């Protein structure tokens, strides 16, 4: 099973990279963009086959190291 973890700054925490990318898109004349957030994706190949167990384990990983929950949110997708 593969776990796809997306980590990004929390809503309300200024994302200066996102702002810079937004600015760059504006100067390239891509219109209609309300907001840009830049995050990171961590892809884990797991040996676990039980989805529930995998979710518990990956959540623990996110809380302990993959995300800094003071400033970041994370989402987990299992495929």
């Amino acid at each position, binding site marked *: 099973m593969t776990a796809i973890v997306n980590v990004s*700054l929390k809503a309300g*925490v*200024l994302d*200066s*990279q996102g702002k*810079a990318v937004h600015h760059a898109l504006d100067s390239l004349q891509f219109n209609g963009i309300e907001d840009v957030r830049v995050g990171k994706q961590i892809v884990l190949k797991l040996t676990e086959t039980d989805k529930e167990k995998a979710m518990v384990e990956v959540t623990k990983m996110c809380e302990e*190291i*993959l995300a*800094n929950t*003071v*400033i970041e949110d994370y989402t987990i997708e299992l495929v």
Partner: protein
Amino acid sequence: MKVTILQFPGTNCEYDTQHAFEQLGATTEIVWHKAESLPSDTNLLVVAGGFSYGDYLRSGAIAKFSPVMKAVTEYANKGGKVLGICNGFQVLTEAGLLPGALKRNDGLHFISKHHALKVENNDNIFLEKLEQGDVVNIPIAHHDGNYYINEAGLADLEANSQILLRYTNANGEIKNPNGSVSSIAGVCNKSKNVFGLMPHPERAMESILGSDDGVKMLEGFLAL
């Protein structure tokens, strides 16, 4: 007075820190991150600056799981004095020994220059040689120095006088180089035994090299 200085793969300020404290008359020892205990005669533990583990994942994120960090947490929880400078500050916030977190600078650039800092609170061993409102000139050199804490956390810091230093101009008026919440450059924990700051006092020890204001800061620890 014995200063123990931590060294992770990627730390690069351990020898400057050692030199600075030896200049003040302290004895020092550099301890590799694989150590499982700290020298028993340690009076001050310094987590030195640099780029531990190449800043992979987040600055300080990997270092917090180094073998030595368990001993560091025990030492801090027993009231031992800990000082984190730059990457050391990032490590201490990641490890949960200090509140808040450090984000990428708002301007996205690495900033390396001398900066004025105002002493906000001196009712702690670190800054007791300085007066509240004093302005010191100390180098900063960081990419992730943008201190973040939520509103409730900031109110807590204010209420317990945990804000050590703010970025200012030479007149002590707020001037924020990196986007830090409330222009914060350094904080301590509630019990005032764990200190962290982004600027480098160990690089401001000789007036001929730009500033010796770091002496007044690090001197505070000599009473230990």
